[in-house]
């Protein structure tokens, strides 16, 4: 046990040392920002669940069924999230971390290294789920007036769930590393990405939530109620966890103890099994993962054709950076699952518009379609922000320790940042415009709304990409093992918040003028002088905000990288 503690100590000490002031700079702004965001999410989750459960309580009989079904759905969702999160963390902590060669050189058994790493992985994967399940179950406890025992049982059940998913993931990853050929460990990530994408699409296809607005689908409400009360399989840990929490809520002590005992023993047994497997399989798998990875796909070359020639219009240094960026991006298999997920996100986004039952709404369709279209500007910009946060914000950090090449090269930092900007801006503006135009076509909006949407997105995209490149440079982390995760850093969160503020400001500034112009168009009237002045000022200020977000962060990034 002492060895395990010694192996965990570097991680604990690093976390403690991370609280120290960094180079004389206080960490308080960082803590304040993370703390505030955490409290906002926590409180928001609590309020939403409390209100929902309160509403359920007002519906006789059916309310209780719904509340219990919600627990079951939440546990399945948490379980799935934990499983995916644990697989990715286990892979990283057990096979990919840079300190592993050092650990394996120590006079410590591989089983102990596995166990210490597994503990870290479990913590990293689970703390957020545990923290954000509290407000959910606190609202249950308050609504159902549960005693302190409910909270104790709930905490134990959630911890056992984390241990079960983590042990299962450990076993899965151990087998994956054993079966897959040398150097292909990262391929698991790709398989996972594809599996998740398929899972999302299937869920979307089969649930068809748009039918909820179709009154014909409520014909068989009895069948629906019956299906809600159907118990889940008694062989699944999710069923035991759900039953534990339900029994604790209803004060059924026997059932509660039985189910928590089942869950706990299952967790302990899985941990034991994973350790036994690790004893025989971990080191071999680690050793295989250290061998040189072969290229997953052999380079394809067509005689007389070279894709690089498509970039010949660029100045030479810019082309060099563009080619380097494209190659490194597409050869990094860790990027692929993210691409699949983004593709799924966009597909779902467009699909949602295609199934909106516009003709079934009781409200006047033309008004609703154009309202959706206006809101769609903000939504599309948020989707874009998510993509930009994942791919563009870490772009400067992705240079990693090789950033010295850029610094030593006869290319200014300003130029380097602008090259990065245009590399991402061009595909993203195309993507964003396609997203908005396609969804507007599906909504059958007026020409004015189509014009407004495309112009607004045309202004927002450079602003969002500019902020990502600029703030990504200001908060660049060239020493990160996984630069893609910089988006969860202080800088990444700041970028997301600023983007949210920018998009919200632009949408709010445009809302008034758009309403006047739209209503005047419907009534075949012209807008008044005051409305015209207001419109000019609003659109002018929105444009100014976009320009500011476009240029200023890149200027800040240039300054920051220049004085390193």
């Amino acid at each position, binding site marked *: 046990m002492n060895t395990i503690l010694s192996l965990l100590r570097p991680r604990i000490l690093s976390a403690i040392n991370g609280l120290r002031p960094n180079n004389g700079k206080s960490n308080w702004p960082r803590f304040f920002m993370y703390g505030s965001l955490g409290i906002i999410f926590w409180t928001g989750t609590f309020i939403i669940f409390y209100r929902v459960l309160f509403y359920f309580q007002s519906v006789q009989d059916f309310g209780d069924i719904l509340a219990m079904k919600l627990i079951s759905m939440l546990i399945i969702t948490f379980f799935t999230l934990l499983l995916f999160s644990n697989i990715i963390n286990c892979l990283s902590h057990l096979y990919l971390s840079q300190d592993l060669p050092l650990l394996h050189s120590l006079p410590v058994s591989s089983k102990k290294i596995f166990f210490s790493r597994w503990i870290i992985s479990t913590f990293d994967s689970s703390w957020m789920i545990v923290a954000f399940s509290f407000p959910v179950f606190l609202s249950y406890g308050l609504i159902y007036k549960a005693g302190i025992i409910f909270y104790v049982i709930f905490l134990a059940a959630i911890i056992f769930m984390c241990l079960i998913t983590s042990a299962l993931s450990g076993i899965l990853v151990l087998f994956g590393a054993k079966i897959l050929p040398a150097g292909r460990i990262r391929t698991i990530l790709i398989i996972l990405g594809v599996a998740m994408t398929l899972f999302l699409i299937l869920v979307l296809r089969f649930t068809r939530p748009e039918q909820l607005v179709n009154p014909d689908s409520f014909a068989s409400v009895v069948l629906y109620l019956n299906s809600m009360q159907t118990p889940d399989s008694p062989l699944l840990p999710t069923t035991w966890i759900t039953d534990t929490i339900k029994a604790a809520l209803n004060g059924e002590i026997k059932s509660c103890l039985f189910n928590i005992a089942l869950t706990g023993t299952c967790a302990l047994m899985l941990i034991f099994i994973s350790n036994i497997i690790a004893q025989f399989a971990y080191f071999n798998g680690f050793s295989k993962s250290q061998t*040189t990875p072969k290229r997953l796909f052999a380079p394809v070359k067509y005689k007389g054709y070279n894709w690089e020639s498509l970039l010949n219009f660029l100045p*030479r240094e810019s082309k*060099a950076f563009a080619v380097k960026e494209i190659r490194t991006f597409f050869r990094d298999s860790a990027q692929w699952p993210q691409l699949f997920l983004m593709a799924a996100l966009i597909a779902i986004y467009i699909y949602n518009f295609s199934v909106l039952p516009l003709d079934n709404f009781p409200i006047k369709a033309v008004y609703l379609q154009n309202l959706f279209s206006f809101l769609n500007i903000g939504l599309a910009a948020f989707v874009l922000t998510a993509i930009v946060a994942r791919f563009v914000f870490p772009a400067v950090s992705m240079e990693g*320790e*090789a950033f*010295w*090449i850029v*610094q030593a*090269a*006869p290319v200014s930092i300003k130029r380097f940042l602008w090259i990065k900007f245009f590399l991402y801006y061009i595909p993203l503006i195309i993507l964003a415009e396609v997203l908005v135009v396609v969804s507007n076509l599906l909504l059958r909006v007026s020409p004015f709304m189509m014009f407004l949407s495309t112009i607004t997105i045309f202004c927002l995209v450079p602003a969002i990409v500019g902020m990502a490149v600029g703030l990504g440079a200001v908060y660049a982390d060239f020493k990160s093992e996984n630069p893609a995760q910089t988006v969860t850093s202080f800088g990444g969160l700041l970028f997301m918040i600023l983007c949210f503020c920018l998009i919200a400001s632009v949408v709010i500034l445009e809302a008034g003028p758009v309403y006047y112009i739209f209503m005047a168009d419907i009534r075949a009237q012209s807008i008044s002088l005051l409305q015209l002045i207001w419109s000019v000022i609003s659109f002018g200020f929105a444009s100014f905000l976009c320009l500011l977000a476009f240029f200023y962060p890149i200027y800040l990034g240039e300054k920051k990288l220049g004085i390193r």
Partner: protein
Amino acid sequence: MIKLHELTKDYGTTLAVNKLSLNVAAGEIYGFIGPNGAGKTTTIRLMGGILAPTSGNIIIGGLDMAQNPVEAKQMIGFVPDRPFLYEKLTGMEFLRFSADLYNVRHDTFPQKAQQLLQQFALADWADELIEAYSHGMKQRLIIASALLHDPRILIIDEPMVGLDPAAVRMVKDILKELAAHQTTIFISTHTLSIAEDLCHRIGLIHKGMLLAQGTLDELKHIANLGEARLEEVFLTIIKENTFI
């Protein structure tokens, strides 16, 4: 060719380089030695334009690095102490990338790249991803890419780390030949025998300050040592904190 004037780098908590002044002439090989944490790598990074100085000037081929960084860097071939590269590019692709940045002529690039890859025993690995290279191969690739644009100044931090004896000999021969053709070479190293064999002049830095500089004989004189090896000279000067 290289002129450092009152160069200072203060990291806030550490004064890494303290009013360092020195000159290196064209065709000279200047060795920069000192204990760990003396400020060698910081000086090299300042000269390569990777760090900005707190005060002082760096003049490269008559150009001030602060005023004309792009033009000054064009003259330099830079080799860092640790071979971090773009792991997802092949060796040849990385050379092409460097050639584009340093404006190597398109018509001469293929021949020059092949010649360097052959010279550094990397020709068979040219189309393999850099992530598959060993430490020594990456180091050789960086040196090859630094020579691709025929730099007038070569700045190298620990050139021999990770190289096998044959590669060490080859790099030494290349550096001597370059110096003979008027390339200025600034080397930082811990390996005193290399400084002894290779360098026309040696500078000794300690706690960010240049304690002594000169030919090996001049350093022996400063340290009041007769027929001594550089190692003894180094230890004596460091111990006594002898100033120039």
